[in-house]
């Protein structure tokens, strides 16, 4: 009889161990799941490639203000938008320029990541061209201009009139 109990116990041990391993994997699975969830919910679609949907109608009845923000983290660079903010009609195709320049005497590389505010904007902002997530290498003293082309989906809720598009350049030294 004791032998029997031991056997059942081992079977249960095996099941529970497998379950623990699955849960460990689940911890990792949360990473892509989170990205996917954010993408579907339109919260944080950072990695999504730019969408080219050119036949949106321009909503000329209203104007929204887009603020262009820029930040640099851990790089001896200057990074700014050539215009600090613009007023546009939703649906209009827009191109804005950002400029980076390397103030140091060393060649350095960095990469920008975007972030938007308010957060619903991420759902309505369609970018055709962007420099984010692309490695930028700047020689000492070099200055480069980079365009961002985008359109704001006219579906955007009417009560959103001011929004911010922000880019942050991080040093790539630690990444690669």
């Amino acid at each position, binding site marked *: 009889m004791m032998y029997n109990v031991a056997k059942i116990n081992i079977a249960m041990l095996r099941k529970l161990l497998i379950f623990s391993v699955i*849960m460990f994997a689940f*911890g990792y699975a*949360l990473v892509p799941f989170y990205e996917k969830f954010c993408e579907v919910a339109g919260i944080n679609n950072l990695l999504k490639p730019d969408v080219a949907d050119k036949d949106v109608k321009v909503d000329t009845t209203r104007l929204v203000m887009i603020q262009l923000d820029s930040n640099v983290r851990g790089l001896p660079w200057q990074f700014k938008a050539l215009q600090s903010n613009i007023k546009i009609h939703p649906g209009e195709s827009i191109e804005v320029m950002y400029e980076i320049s390397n103030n140091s005497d060393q060649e350095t590389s960095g990469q920008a990541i975007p972030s938007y505010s308010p*957060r619903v904007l991420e759902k309505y902002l369609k970018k055709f061209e962007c420099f984010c997530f692309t490695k930028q290498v700047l020689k000492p003293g070099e200055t480069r201009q980079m365009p961002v082309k985008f359109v704001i989906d006219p579906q955007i809720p009417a009560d959103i009139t001011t929004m911010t598009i922000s880019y942050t350049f991080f040093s790539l030294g*630690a990444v690669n």
Partner: protein
Amino acid sequence: MAVVQDVHGHGHDDHHPTGIMRWVCTTNHKDIGTMYLWFSFAMFLVGGFLAMGIRAELFMPGIQILEPELFNSFTTLHGLIMVFGAIMPAFVGLANWQVPMMIGAPDMAFARMNNWSFWILPVAATLLVSSFFVPGGAAAGGWTFYPPLSTQGGMGVDMMIFAVHLLGASSIMGAINIITTILNMRAPGMTLMKMPLFVWTWLITAYLLVLVMPVLAGTVTMLLTDRNFGTSFFNAAGGGDPVLFQHIFWFFGHPEVYIMILPAFGVVSEIIPTFSRKPLFGYSSMVYATASIAILSCVVWAHHMFTVGMPSVGQLFFMYATMLIAVPTGVKVFNWTATMWRGSMTFEVPMLFSIGFIFLFVIGGFSGVICAIVPIDIQVQETYYVIAHFHYVLVSGALFAIFGAVYYWLPKWCGRMYDEKLGKWHFWLSMFFFNLTFFVQHFLGLAGMPRRVPDYALQFADFNMVSSIGGFGFGLTQLFFLYIVIKCIRSGEKAADKPWEGGTTLEWTLPSPAPYHSFETPPTIK
């Protein structure tokens, strides 16, 4: 290895063949339970020492004793040690002692694994404590170790991560053992619905443990690779997201809160009926409420993150879900009250601790509901209000229940009674000093004192001093508890087999002290 020495030093007084190897190699559930309990008490003192350091620094405004960096290490290690080193092992120790006895089993299902899961703990504890002495010092990013701050730290952080791995492995093994024991080793006739509530709550807790501890292990592994191997799960520069860490951490962290409180519910649900001489009111609802709390605890995690800037949909979802979880918790309190109603009550120390538990846990529950309301939470998040809230839940909740359990079962464990008068002193002093320490912290939080700061504005000075005095008093009271326990083991009066008139569970059918092997032949259950 002071901790281990301590375990040996006090473990000997079981009248059985001694010698150090007996404790190192033991596979007996009672020996292991004893070691767990002494270990957790040792860690409780270490964590308490850190708390005393924190309260001493905060006694007056200005930097006196601890430099800010060391202060942060103190708060971080205080949290980790209390949660993983003191509270959780104490409950596992109680389960080791009590579960086989309460279900009529001879021992735990996997005796050898039981031994391993204990001996991992001192190793992990040594890692944690010794991280204070490595270059860069111990981890200082809070017990929640949010990146990117925790990516900045030195070697101490890596040691902490390994310690968490080990503690997690130990908990998982312990949980598997408990589940298997409860499901497969019950005496004939002990159906699931006849099991004592302490066993039920531990069964559900053990399931929660295997559910979420691996997720924690995954999170800290990601943190480890982010720190040392260039991955960027949580590194914004590489396309990761620091907030993702908080999501995964709290997916573990919130159920963890219930892992620490559900066995406490079980303990209280044993003690209250015993001293009311009346069966537990609504046993079946208690079982179901525990199960539903466990399930719901997995979908409310983001209420720890209302200020990260999630969309209103997210905030509202987690607010509603969190408020709903308050209901089954509240129902338990009503059940205990109804159990006491028209009972024939006596107030021995275990009962006092249980009533103290209910009283203070309800206060912690109220501040919990207030924290669930998003606009208010945004004000009190990361302030002393939250500190007060979770100490009401974890100290007067989990810890008081553990004290109650120790007084309740001590006669069975060592065959001697504790000193009732001293026990009462312990209760009233704990009660007084606990409230002195933490009640004022609600007001500090409301008035705007952030948590985890080594120094504060002058307006917070008076209540911080009150809180520190309470803290020192509470700390000293626990040394008094140590004295009571040692006195009981050494020279307590001989205990009857059933020292409590109202006890109905199986362990009271055994002689006191409980024999080395509890039920060689399974008991019959009516």
